[in-house]
Every structure is written in structure tokens, then in C-alpha cells.
């Protein structure tokens, strides 16, 4: 992808944009990751999945994590959720170190993880029930969450009666019903078709805007990252390290029309540069035998 030459570098920010990000950084830090390293021991040598990762997420920020496949995105989010333990370093939530999974960090997985034996409402009530909450107020709150993701009609349906997008919406409602400090999402829309994914992104932005919630969102889709994020954490592979933290200059509220705005394209181009550095060479790098006859080309 060659960028239009007249496009501005996303780093030459307008005064409004810089003002926005300095305001963001004045907010309290919800999640801070300090010098995080993860080494998987294995028979043929240890695999360093993450190498001294450092970053902070501010309150009500929407941050995306992007990087080439195998760079450790899932490993990172699983450590944050407490499902995996770090080799060294620390994860602080509101300044307190986290140990093990807990309801203060909600998680939405790429695979569908609704409990098949519970209805939509029972799924949403799962977290509160584990905390020993029950009664009419908890029930009506659960209904509100379901209404928020637009599934009121399905509150008594079982997961196998829902489409993929609906399942992920329930998963989001279920995670939010616990009132977590931060919502961790590992490619939650990865399995959905393009149209549904686009819808889900708008949904998520709406929910995020109306709630006091911080979101850390993993994706490998440049559009998705640019459309959703305040800032984008770009990781590089082998070992997984922070490459750059991009401050997205696209103003909010975001709309689909902005996909062709110069800021949007510039941001996408920058990410592309970071995660596919070799692709700059163009066609010369392809060593692929011609399988069609000369003169049979479409042009």
C-alpha cells in the first residue's frame, strides 16, 4: 500500500489533537504494565513470547493492540486477565498488583464462551450469582444489560439459538454485568463476517461511550484498530515487544465515513509500515512462476 504523497504524517498533529491526548493522559491510570516478560519453556529452547512490555491505559480509554500473528497479543491479554502468569514484571490495576483471574477484569474471547446450558439472561446473571448477589434488582439490571446489546427478545433463548454476532453481544453484556474496571477483548469479532463485524464495532463504540469503562482490544484488522482506538499499541514479533504507541488523530465521534479521511489513511499506513516492514519492496520480491499464457491477461 503506497500512501498518497500529500497525506500528512499522523505524527504532525493539529493542536486540537495534541490537546485531546494531553487531556487523556491527565486521567488516572487504570491499568499499568511494567517490564512484563513471558517465557514459555519448551523442549527445543525457551520461547520468549513477550519481552519487557511497558504501557499504561487511562480511565475510559479505548486501546487496541495490534501486531503480526504470533507476536504475543493473546499471551499479553491472558496475563492481564490472570489466566496465565508472567515470568517477570508486574501488572497493576488501579495501582494494585493483580494475581489470578477476577471479576474486576472482564474478558470477551474470540471463541464463543457462553454457557450452553444457561439462557441469555442466566448467562448475564452468572457473574453476579458467583458473587452471591440475587434478587429483583440484580435481575432487572441483567435485563438492562441485555437491552443495551439489543437482545431483549432473546433473553430466554439458549446460546445455540443465536447467531455468532448475537453470542458475542451476550458475551459483552455478561462481562459488563460484573461492573469490571477494564474490559479485555481478544479478537472478539474475528469470527464474524465483515458486515456483522462493522455493526458490532459501532455497537461497541456506543456502549463504551455511555459507560464508565476502559477497553483493551486485540485485533489484527487495521481498519478496526483505527476506527475504535484512542491509541494503538503496536507489537512486533520475536520476541514480542512494544514497537510504537500510535495516537489516532481521527476525531470522535467516529463514523464509517471517516474511513477515507486523510488521518484515517495515514494512521492505517503507519500501522501497516510497522507490522509489514518487508512488503515495501513490491512485486520484485515475488518469486512465483507464471502459470498463464502471455497475452491472456485481463488488462
Amino acid at each position, binding site marked *: 500500500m503506497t500512501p498518497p504523497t500529500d497525506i500528512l504524517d499522523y505524527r504532525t498533529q493539529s493542536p486540537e489533537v495534541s490537546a485531546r491526548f494531553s487531556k487523556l493522559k491527565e486521567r488516572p491510570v487504570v491499568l499499568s504494565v511494567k517490564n512484563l516478560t513471558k517465557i514459555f519453556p519448551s523442549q527445543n529452547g525457551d520461547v520468549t513470547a513477550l519481552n519487557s512490555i511497558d504501557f499504561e491505559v487511562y480511565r475510559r480509554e479505548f486501546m487496541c493492540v495490534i501486531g503480526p500473528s504470533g507476536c504475543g497479543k493473546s499471551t499479553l491479554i491472558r496475563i492481564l486477565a*490472570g489466566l496465565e502468569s508472567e515470568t517477570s514484571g508486574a501488572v497493576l490495576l488501579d495501582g494494585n498488583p493483580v494475581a489470578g483471574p477476577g471479576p474486576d477484569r472482564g*474478558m470477551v474471547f474470540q471463541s464463543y*464462551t457462553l454457557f*450452553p446450558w444457561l439462557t441469555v439472561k442466566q448467562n448475564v446473571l452468572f457473574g453476579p450469582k458467583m458473587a452471591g448477589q440475587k434478587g429483583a434488582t440484580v435481575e432487572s439490571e441483567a435485563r438492562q444489560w441485555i437491552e443495551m446489546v439489543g437482545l431483549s427478545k432473546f433473553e430466554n433463548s*439458549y446460546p445455540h439459538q443465536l447467531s455468532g454476532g448475537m453470542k458475542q453481544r451476550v458475551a459483552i453484556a455478561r462481562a459488563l454485568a460484573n461492573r469490571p474496571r477494564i474490559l479485555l477483548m481478544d479478537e472478539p469479532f474475528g469470527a464474524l463476517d465483515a458486515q456483522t463485524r462493522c455493526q458490532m464495532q459501532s455497537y461497541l463504540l456506543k456502549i463504551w461511550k455511555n459507560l464508565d469503562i476502559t477497553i483493551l482490544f486485540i485485533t489484527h484488522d487495521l481498519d478496526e484498530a483505527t476506527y475504535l482506538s484512542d491509541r494503538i499499541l503496536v507489537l512486533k514479533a520475536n520476541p514480542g515487544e512494544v514497537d510504537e504507541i500510535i495516537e489516532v488523530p481521527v476525531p470522535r465521534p467516529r463514523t464509517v465515513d471517516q474511513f477515507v479521511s486523510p488521518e484515517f489513511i495515514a494512521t492505517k499506513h503507519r500501522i501497516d509500515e510497522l507490522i509489514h516492514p518487508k512488503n515495501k519492496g513490491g512485486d520484485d520480491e515475488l518469486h512465483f512462476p507464471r502459470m498463464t499464457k502471455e497475452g491472456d491477461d485481463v488488462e
Partner: protein
Amino acid sequence: MSGSLKKAREPWFAVRRELSPQRSSVLTIVSFALPLLIWAAVSYLPFLWHPDVQLQLSANRADVSTVYVAGDRVSKSYFPEFQEAVRSQNEDLKKQLSSDDPLAGASESSVRRANKKVLRHLVPLLIQNKWIKDDQATDDEAIYHAWGELASSSRRLKSPSLSEENLAIVEDNWKAMSAIAPNYVSDNFVSTPLLSLIPQGKTSNPDYLPAPDQVLAAGVKVFSIPADGDRPSMVQRIGHSLQIVFGGFCLAALVGVPIGVVCGTYPFFSRLVEPFTDFFRYMPAPTFSTLLVAIFLANDAPKIALVFVGTFFQLVLVTANTTRRLDMPLLEAAQTLGASQRQLLTRVVVPGILPNLYDDLRILLGWAWTWLVIAELVGVKSGLTEFIETQGRFRNFDMVFPIIILIGLIGFFTDQILSLIKGLVFPYTEDGTKAASHPILKAVLFIPRLVLRLLTNRSASGTT
């Protein structure tokens, strides 16, 4: 134009392509009809197999000690030899009768006794033709009368009929008999030797393959025998067998499922329990039978224990594996939602594995069935197996087949019913959606559902 849009015919054979419901039902019926058809063909078409001859009429051979009676089977190759031997015996007798010493030195009383036997050789034919009743097999007066009727051609045996050859012998004998007395008189009975009837028979299968109609008739008979003394009726026997299968199986499930779930959940218990269980299940359960009798003494306890031993170890391992197959992400999701270790077990693992566990138990119930016969042979024989054993020893295989088929049917229908109601027990599985629209279930559940709806409506209107 529309002619070219003709729908392509679905092929009957396509790799992993589902057949239409109609075709599936047709094939299901054929799958049962085909074996039945083969059985009937082999039974009723003599040219297919029929290696034996079943005697309708037997005879005594003086030169052989083996005695065949009507109903016995002899091989096709032996039968002509048998007939030939009796014929030449008759030839010798004729020579002897025309000689100086027609009795050949035998006493008159012994010849009379032998003659009465010849007379009675006709009995099976007479009974089958309903000339005399079952209990008249030793009623010599009636038999004598029948001989007279046959000889004078006033009546004919129809099915089975008497061969021309034998009819001639009957006439010959009757001349000698009627010369002494027209009716049977025990003391005034012919004392010159009578000719022997030549064996008659029809081709048949060996006795271990009775024909469908015989099995059906035997089945009806078997079920109509009432209980008497210490001989239970067939229904009581079935009840007893069910008690042993389900007793052993339920005990195994009651103990085995919790152990299996714990093993599948905690690697600690898996390491502690499973290696030994894995070893133990290779020891065949029947080898424990004498031991079990020593421990549990008589009656049903050792039998139930044998079914238990045969199912339990398998059940623990299968349950543990099913538990381990539970989606890891479900457990992780539950943890991020704040579930404690104990809650993971009770709120996620247990409900999560139930549908698969249900299927496992269905399969293991099938296993338990296979132990039934061995279990019922332990200690004092009992139940259906005792009946099979007894009848089998007398070679009454037509009585054995209904019981074997019955055991199969009970097992088969139990499994079918369990699989049908799975959808009701677990409405959230794929089977659940299927079950909701199943015509049989709809019909069965109509009344309970109606009652349920009425009840919920009333309580709803009661609260508002």
C-alpha cells in the same frame, strides 16, 4: 424451456451426504426386514440349505442300537441308508415267514411285544392328522382301529401323508392282524412278526435354526406358562433380569460418576485413581464370579456385584475423559467472571458435561446388558438365563430364540427411549430442538404440557 430445468435426482450413494427423511425411514425398515427375510428364506426354501431330514415316521433297526423317534433329525446322507436298512430287514422277515420256522426261535410273547411297537410307530402321523389325541399315544385300541381304517382305504392320512410303500405294508400287516381279531384284544394279538414301516421324513434345517413361525409359536407358549411353585413366569423372569442389570448399573453410576468427575477435574485425583483403574478394567469381570459368591453369598448380591465390576471401572475412565473434554475456554470465562474453584466444579464442570455424560451412560448401560447372562449364571442360575440354559440343554432351541430376541429388544428400546428423551432433559442441545418437534414426543407430551401451561397460567394470574 422448463423441461431443461428438471431437478437432478439425488444419488443414493454419495460420500457423507445425508439422505432424505423418506429414504432414511425406508432404509431403517429394510435394515430390520432384510435379516428377517433371509431367516425366512433359509427356513422355508428347502433348496437353500436344509441339510437334515426330520423324521415324520421312524422305525426300529435291529442291527443298530441308536433309536430314532419321529421329530428327530438325521443327515440327508444317512436317511436313504436308514430306509434301505429297514427295507432289507423286511425282506429278511418275509423269507423267514415263508420258511419252516416263522418265529425264528423267538417266544410268542416277545414277538407280540415287538408287534405292538410296530403298531405304535404310526402314532406321530395319527396325532398330526388329528385321528387320535395327544394323550392317546398308548391307546392301542384306537391305534389298532386306525390301522384297520387305513388298510381298508376308508380313510387316508393327508398331512403328512403315508407313502404308497408304507400303505402296502399296512395292508399286509392288517391281513395278519385281522385274521386274529378285528378289534384290539391284548391277549389275542397277532403273534407272527409284522413288517416294519419304512422311515418317512421331510428335509429341514438343523434344530439350532428353528423357523420364524416355530419361534413365534414358542414365544407365545413361553409367555403363557403361568408361575408355579419355584418356577417363575416369564414376566417375573424379565423383572428379575432387569433388576440385576439396572441394579448393577445404577450402583456403578452412583459411585463411578462422582469419582470420574473428580478425576477429570483435578489432575491430582486423575493421577491417583486412573492408572490403577485402567489396569483393573482389563481383568475380565467373570473371573471374579467365584470370589463374588464368597463375599456376597447367595441370591442376587453377587450377580449385581458382577455387573458392577464389569461396568464400574470403564465408567470411571469414560466419565473422567468426558469431564476433561469440557471446553477449557468455558472454565476460563467462568474464572474471569469471578467463579471460585468450588463454583467452577459445581456451576460449570457438572452442568457442562451432563449432556455428554448422558450419552456415555447410555453406552455403558449397553455394556451392563452384556454382563447379564454371565451374572445370572453366577451362584444359583436365575432369570432369563436360567430358562435359556434349561431349554438349551434339551435342545428346545425354538424356546431359546424368543428369549434371546427379547433381551435384544429390551436393550434396544431402552436405548431408543433414552435417546428420545435426551432432548427433553437437555433442551439447550441440538437434540433439544429436534425433540421439541418430534411427532411421537409431541403426542406423548401433549397432556403433561397442557397441565403445565394451565398451572403456570393460574399461578401467574394468582399473583397479579
